């Protein structure tokens, strides 16, 4: 493998690994709390297990955004 290929592959691997850890925590506890019913005063939105599983790929891809929102900052 060329050096640049292994640098890219390692980079992707690191990003995805970090993403997986954050995504799992996110769908387990954070996801319902980070989005209201559409109105801020209504508390967490109920989510089924299926919906949580479907959110994992998006959270792996966008984990920096997920983390930001979780830490209470705007997008």
């Amino acid at each position: 493998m060329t050096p640049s290929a292994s640098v890219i592959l390692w980079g992707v691997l690191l990003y995805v690994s970090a993403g997986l850890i954050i995504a799992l925590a996110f769908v387990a506890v954070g996801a319902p709390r980070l989005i209201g019913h559409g109105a801020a005063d209504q508390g967490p939105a109920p989510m089924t297990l299926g919906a949580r599983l479907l959110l994992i790929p998006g959270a792996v891809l966008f984990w920096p955004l997920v983390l930001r929102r979780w830490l209470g900052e705007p997008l």
Partner: protein
Amino acid sequence: MSAGFQAVQWNGAKIRYDAILLGLVAFYLAGFILIAASLHPPTSAAGWIDLRIKAFGSCAFLMLSTVLAIGPLARLNPRLLPLLYNRRHLGVATFFIALAHAGFMVEWYLLESDIANLAGELTSWADYANFPAGFPFKALGLIALLTMLVMAATSHDYWLGFLTPPLWKAIHMGIYVGYGAAALHIALGAMQSNRHPAVPILLFALFGTVSLLHILAARKSAALDIGDDDSDGWLVVGAASDIPDGRARIVAPVGGERIAVFRDGRILSAVSNLCAHQNGPIGEGHVVDGCITCPWHGYEYRVEDGCAPPPFTEKLATYRLRLRGNLLEVQTAPLPPGTNASLTLP
């Protein structure tokens, strides 16, 4: 809608849509492989994989072209709106077909040679100067696949709420980058190596049709935008009786958001033409049981005040209406979302 999240919000229409979609995909793939294999029977395991790469690759491009054609088609002819209704599932299915196409190619490398060659091929930077033959066209396919991955991974309604509709929409506009990359992937790959005339014909016919439909739909929207003089803050909609019962007339203030003026029997009301869900063209929908129903995903809002019925909480901006003789006029400045500004005809 937003009272909680499920994996997929199924209903009869969506199940039918998906069943037809799956049937067509299976028919295409089986037909492609059967016909191609009877014309030129593959002589090796690699030959069979090659056939699957071609079947799934062309299927993915056909599906992606269809996904992109549906929007303008529905704008040009409202009878095609049912196609739009479940376009999201078509998009996600397209991603999986493209993923299988790329997966077969990995299988081919595993069979033929060292998989490390593949990574090496994509990072032989000097090759990117080769044009048109010899360009690493697989990298273009990878770009297309990654953009489709982003779309599919964020297709759940949750992400629409999380990312906010403007950002979500901006991300999903990336599909045009993906489509361009897929077209180049074919032009620099299959079109260079595979001398079969079907490849350029398929490519140009589909890419040309999608482009033409977008141009036609944009011209139709532009024609709508030539509003009447609204310098006094009021815009003429037309005779109230000219609005078909249960439907809307869409008007466009100069430089402002479009307004959909609905009539439900004797009740008239004006709401923003952008659905609070995905900015769908709500004015192309109709009134069902006193609720304006968005043609895209069936989000509902009461005619009188633009509020979604409980337990839902979405609201549309409304606009003040007035009658001058027989002529209906709408004020171009929006009211706060959910304000009741409806007008009842005598």
